[in-house]
C-alpha cells in the first residue's frame, strides 16, 4: 500500500511535465512531450527493476520530472534569437541579494496587510499622544468626568503659558440610526472638532473635502463599529448617520487601538467649541506648550486653576504620552547592540590571508565590500520590519512590553543576520563572489601537527581554492585562500 507522500509525489509528476511543456515553443512542444514521457516511462521501469518501492524512489522520479523545467526554458531561450540566458544562479551573489530582497518584500507586505502593524506605524510616525495631558479634578480618584463645559470654554478662550490647545469630550448613550432602518444604542462622544488633531491620531479614509451640506457636522466611527455594522466598507466617508434625528457626515474611522482615553466610544460627533452644551461635564485634554513640556517632568502634575468668581480649583494633569521611545530609536539601539555582540558570535575577519601575495584590484575589492554592505543593509531592513511586526502582533501598542519585544527581536534578528552575512562572505570567492563548492577532506586528523589536515573548497569559476584547517594550530589558525594560476585553467571552461 502506498503512503501519502508516495501518492502525492506520484500525482505531481505528470502535471509537472504538463506545466513545463507550456514553456516550450509550440512548434517543438509535441516532440518535447513525447521525449519526456518516454524517458519518464524508462526511468520508472529502471526504478521498478531495482525492486525498491518507497517514497524515496518516487522522490527521485519527481526530481527527474522537475528537470523538465530547465530543459523547457532552455528551448524557449533558444527560440528567442539573440537572447543570452542568464548564468545559473546557484551560489551566485545575485541569487543571495534577490533572496534577501524577496524576504524584505515579504515582511513589508505583512506589515502593510496587518491592520495592527499598519496602525502602529502610522501612530508612531504621527507621534500620537505626544505632549497630551488629561486634566481632571484632583479630589476625584476615579476616571469619572469632572470638568464642566463652562470651565473648558473659559480655558480654551483664554491664554495659557503651559498649554497651547484644549479639547473636550463628554460621553452619552444614544440610539444611532446607522442605515435607513437600522437603529442601535451606541456610546457617543460629543467632542470638540480639534480632538483628533490635538491627540495626533490620523483618521482612516479621512478626506479634506468638506460636506456639501453645511448643516451636517462630522462624525468619526470606531474601528469596531466600522467593521461590525458597516462591514468594513472602504467607501464609508461621506455617508450620513442620524443621532436624535440630526444628520452627521462620516468623516473617517479611528484606527484600532488608537483610543487610550477614559470610556469606550463607538462614535465621536465633532462640534465647534461654541456648540459644546453648557452645564455638562466631560473630559478635558490639553496639549503642552514648550514651556509646559519643561514643567511636565513627571507623569502627573498638580495644576492650580481659577474657576468662576476666582474660586481655586485643584486639578491633576495626567500625561498620556507614555514616554516610550519611538520605534526608530528602539531599532537603532537594537542594531548598535547587535554590532557590539557580533565579534562574540562570528569571526568578523574576511580572511584575506593568502591573498596578500596576489593583490586584488580595487574594483574587485570594492565589489566585495559593496556586496557585504548590501547584505548587511538588507538584513537590517528585514530586522526593522520583522521586529516591528512581532512587537505589534504580541503586545499592546506603545506598552513597555511592546518596546522590550521590539528591542529583543530586533537585536536577535540583527545579530543572527549579521553573523550569517559574515559567515557567508568568508565562503565566497574574493574574485567572483560565488560560494565555493565541492568540499574535499584532505589529510588525516592524526597528522594535524605534522602536515596539512582540513577541508578544501574550490570556486566553480576556477579563481580560488579555500583551505579550512580541521584543527586550528599556531601555524595554520584561520582559513586561507589560494588564488589559482593559469595552470588550473584546463579544469574550467572559461
Amino acid at each position, binding site marked *: 500500500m502506498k503512503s501519502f507522500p508516495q501518492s502525492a509525489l506520484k500525482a505531481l509528476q505528470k502535471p509537472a511535465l504538463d506545466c513545463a511543456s507550456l514553456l516550450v515553443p509550440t512548434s517543438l512542444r509535441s516532440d518535447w512531450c513525447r521525449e519526456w514521457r*518516454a524517458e519518464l516511462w524508462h526511468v520508472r521501469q529502471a526504478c521498478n527493476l531495482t525492486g525498491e518501492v518507497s517514497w524515496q524512489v518516487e522522490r527521485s522520479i519527481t526530481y527527474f520530472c522537475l528537470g523538465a523545467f530547465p*530543459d523547457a526554458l532552455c528551448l524557449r531561450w533558444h527560440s528567442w534569437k539573440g537572447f543570452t540566458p542568464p548564468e545559473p544562479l546557484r551560489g551566485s551573489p545575485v541569487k543571495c541579494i534577490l533572496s534577501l530582497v524577496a524576504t524584505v518584500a515579504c515582511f513589508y507586505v505583512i506589515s502593510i496587510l496587518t491592520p495592527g502593524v499598519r496602525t502602529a506605524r502610522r501612530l508612531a510616525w504621527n507621534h500620537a499622544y505626544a505632549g497630551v495631558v488629561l486634566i481632571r479634578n484632583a479630589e476625584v480618584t476615579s476616571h469619572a468626568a469632572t470638568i464642566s463645559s463652562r470651565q473648558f470654554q473659559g480655558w480654551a478662550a483664554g491664554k495659557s503659558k503651559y498649554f497651547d490647545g484644549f479639547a473636550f469630550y463628554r460621553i452619552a448613550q444614544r440610539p444611532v440610526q446607522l442605515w435607513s432602518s437600522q437603529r442601535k444604542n451606541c456610546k457617543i462622544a460629543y467632542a470638540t472638532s480639534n480632538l483628533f488633531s490635538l491627540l495626533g491620531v490620523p483618521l482612516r479614509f479621512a478626506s479634506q473635502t468638506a460636506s456639501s451640506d453645511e448643516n451636517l457636522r462630522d462624525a468619526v466611527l470606531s474601528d469596531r463599529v466600522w467593521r461590525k455594522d458597516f462591514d468594513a466598507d472602504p467607501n464609508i466617508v461621506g455617508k450620513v448617520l442620524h443621532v436624535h434625528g440630526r444628520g452627521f457626515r462620516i468623516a473617517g474611522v479611528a484606527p484600532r487601538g488608537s483610543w487610550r482615553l477614559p470610556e469606550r466610544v463607538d462614535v465621536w460627533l465633532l462640534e465647534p467649541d461654541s456648540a459644546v452644551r453648557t452645564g455638562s461635564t466631560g473630559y478635558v485634554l490639553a496639549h503642552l506648550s514648550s514651556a509646559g513640556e519643561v514643567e511636565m517632568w513627571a507623569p502627573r502634575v498638580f495644576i492650580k486653576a481659577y474657576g468662576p468668581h476666582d474660586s481655586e480649583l485643584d486639578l491633576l494633569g495626567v500625561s498620556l504620552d507614555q514616554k516610550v521611545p519611538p520605534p526608530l530609536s528602539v531599532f537603532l539601539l537594537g542594531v548598535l547592540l547587535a554590532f557590539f555582540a557580533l565579534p562574540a558570535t562570528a569571526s568578523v575577519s574576511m580572511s584575506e590571508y593568502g591573498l596578500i601575495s596576489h593583490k586584488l584590484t580595487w574594483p574587485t575589492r570594492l565589489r566585495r565590500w559593496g556586496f557585504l554592505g548590501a547584505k548587511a543593509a538588507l538584513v537590517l531592513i528585514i530586522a526593522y520590519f520583522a521586529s516591528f511586526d512581532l512587537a505589534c502582533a504580541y503586545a499592546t501598542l506603545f506598552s513597555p512590553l511592546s518596546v522590550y519585544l521590539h528591542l529583543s527581536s530586533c537585536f536577535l534578528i540583527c545579530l543572527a543576520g549579521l553573523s550569517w552575512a559574515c559567515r557567508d562572505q568568508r565562503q565566497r570567492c574574493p574574485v567572483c563572489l560565488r560560494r565555493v563548492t565541492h568540499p574535499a577532506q584532505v589529510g588525516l586528523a592524526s597528522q594535524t601537527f605534522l602536515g596539512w589536515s582540513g577541508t578544501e573548497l574550490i570556486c566553480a569559476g576556477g579563481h580560488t581554492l579555500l583551505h579550512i584547517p580541521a584543527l586550528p594550530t599556531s601555524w595554520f589558525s584561520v582559513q586561507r585562500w589560494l588564488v589559482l594560476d593559469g595552470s588550473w585553467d*584546463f579544469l574550467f*571552461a572559461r
Partner: protein
Amino acid sequence: MACDAKLSHTAAMILQAIDAGFVYGFSIMEMTGLPSGTVYPAMRRLERDELISSRWERQSIADAEQRPPRKYYKLTAAGNATLESSRRRYPLLERLIPSGEEKPV
C-alpha cells in the same frame, strides 16, 4: 561550431557518454551521474551547435518491446572533432567514461 571551441566539462562528459554508446537521455544521466535538469538542456545546446543530432526510434521496434519509442542521439562530424579536442583538454574524461564500453542500442 569550431572544433577547437572550449566545451564545459559537463558538455564534454555528455559528448563522451554519447560516443561511448549511451545514446538516450536517461542512460546519459545514469552514466554521468548528472541530474535531468543539467543533461537535457546541455543536449539541446549541443544539438543547436550541431555537435550532436537526434532521431526517433522506429515505432515497430518499440512496439515489439512493448515500450514507448526513444529519442536517440549521435555525434556529428563536428561533434567528433570537438570531442577529440576536449579529450586533450580534459585528460581524465576517457578514464571516467571509457570509449570501449559500448552499450547495445
